[in-house]
């Protein structure tokens, strides 16, 4: 800091040409904490993960043994791994479209003429801001298969065998995706609402004069104009879906019968229950790769539907 400070005095003496150089030098100094932090907590760990997936680690003695692509081979030949990939993709297939559509729907509601908009908006956002683990503790009892309020309501309505939710291997994963959507949709709602409010009323008035119906107006005006926000949210939702973990850890522990072991939960179990960090790293690298592929695909596909003004 001291040198930058002194150079500041030199500037005062009129050597303006050195201003840029001075700022550049100070810039490096200012960025230093961020650079060091990034190196320590992102860059080096990434290199470590790569190495970790190639070496067998003994956590007692901190000795390493080179295994090449052995852990990747093991991973690709592991039926549990492929189940976890399938579970993650199934989760995404529900979570991503549901969160986006629900968020858009809620934003459209809030954007229309209504009373008590603020209250309804608050209701929509509350799950997003509340402590996730706390809400999961609630969901756990709320969806209790025999006595929970949801099923006792269903039974009083005459449903003889209501779904068993977390203990039924066909229901568990979709329910977790549903809870994930419920939790996150408030964020989508807020961003969609902001985008909708940014659409000029003039467009709608012009379209109405031309005789465009509700659906046509949505398709030709609203959708293109909010598409940058939709695209951003799509990316966020994909990343969020791939990294979903809390529901599995709190509600199902990956079960029943492995049906909710997503890739993230598989990583967690491999590393922290079986202490196989190398295998977990290999799965993690695969997850990272999958993230990049999905982001890249959508990045190129955006030209077809995202409209930048």
């Amino acid at each position: 800091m001291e040198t930058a400070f002194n150079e500041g005095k030199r500037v005062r003496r009129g050597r303006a040409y050195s201003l840029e150089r001075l700022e550049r030098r100070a810039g490096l100094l200012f960025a230093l904490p961020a650079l060091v932090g990034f190196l320590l907590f992102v860059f080096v760990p990434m290199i470590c993960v790569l190495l970790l997936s190639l070496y067998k680690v003994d956590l007692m003695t901190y000795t390493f043994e080179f295994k090449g692509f052995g852990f990747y081979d093991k991973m690709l030949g592991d039926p549990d791994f492929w189940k976890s990939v399938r579970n993650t993709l199934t989760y995404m297939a529900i979570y991503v479209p549901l969160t986006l559509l629900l968020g858009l729907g809620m934003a459209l509601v809030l954007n229309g003429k209504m009373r008590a908009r603020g209250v309804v908006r608050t209701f929509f956002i509350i799950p997003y801001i509340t402590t996730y683990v706390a809400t999961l503790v609630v969901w756990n009892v709320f969806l209790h298969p025999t006595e929970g309020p949801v099923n006792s309501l269903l039974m009083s309505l005459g449903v003889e065998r209501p779904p068993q939710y977390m203990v039924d291997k066909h229901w568990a994963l979709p329910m977790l995706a549903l809870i994930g959507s419920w939790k996150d949709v408030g964020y989508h709602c807020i961003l969609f609402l902001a985008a909708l409010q940014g659409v000029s009323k003039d467009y709608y008035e012009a379209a109405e004069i031309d005789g465009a119906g509700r659906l046509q107006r949505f398709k030709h005006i609203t959708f293109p104009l909010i598409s940058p926000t939709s695209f951003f949210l799509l990316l966020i939702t994909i990343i969020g879906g791939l990294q979903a973990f809390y529901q599995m850890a709190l509600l199902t522990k990956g079960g029943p019968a492995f049906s909710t072991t997503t890739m993230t939960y598989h990583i967690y179990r491999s590393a922290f229950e079986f202490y196989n960090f190398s295998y977990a790293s290999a799965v993690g690298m695969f997850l990272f790769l999958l993230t990049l592929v999905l982001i890249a695909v959508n990045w190129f596909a955006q030209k077809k539907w995202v409209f930048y003004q």
Partner: protein
Amino acid sequence: MPLGSNIRYTVRSVVYLLVGLVFITPLLWMISTSLKFEHQVFERPFVFIHWDAVNWNNYSHVLTGTDFPVWLWNSVFVVIVSVVFRLLLSALGGYAFGFLKFRYSDGIFFAFLAAMFIPYQLTLLPQFISFRFIGLLDSHWALILPNIVDVLSIFLMRQFFLSFPKELVHAAYLEGSGVFRSFVRVALPLAATPLLTLGLLSFFMIWDQYFQPLIFLHSKELYTIPIGLQSFQTQFGKQYAMQMALACLAIIPVLGVFLALQKRFVESIVSSGLKG
């Protein structure tokens, strides 16, 4: 407004209000159950609140008979320290990348951004091993340190400083301030709004963290609220009313902050989302 459309308008609003209430049913049920006795939890017919016999004991038990106050303190400590350091680092970094610039700063920043796609579960693996190696495991610093470096936060501060008026800073130079002093005196005060935004978003994110304490902490006296809640749930699996009281207490701090700063919070999300 003609009477007919006025009624329709009101009816529609009421319907939406009900939809909103249905949306938060689990949380309403949580409040209801937290005020009941255990034998009333699954009672039929369902009663929202037994006004004549409200059971406050769940709360008093949670506050005095469990470690909740300790978890609360731990959460507050971890969140505040993390957020303060994160803001400091992000303000400095954002100023460097967005305003001052230096050799290769844009390139380096691009590498930063790429890191946003790394699943956090992945970087936690080597972090766990290295923390274990240097003996940082089972301490609050294991939770705090990784939280300080947040690419999104640096990104948001950079976006702010990219459009920061050069004249203001240059005027400070002419008055004899160095780069650091003009940053503290001129740039930082004007960055109060984005910093508050960032602080608020970070508060909610770090408060929610469960995976990190799950793997980094062993000692119960170090638990933060999420992991404490989970340990309570595992230990007292059948005491549902108590669990709900605990969940309620866990939510109250964030809900309080949210309701107090709701307008700003919504603006925060919008500004961070649209720029990101």
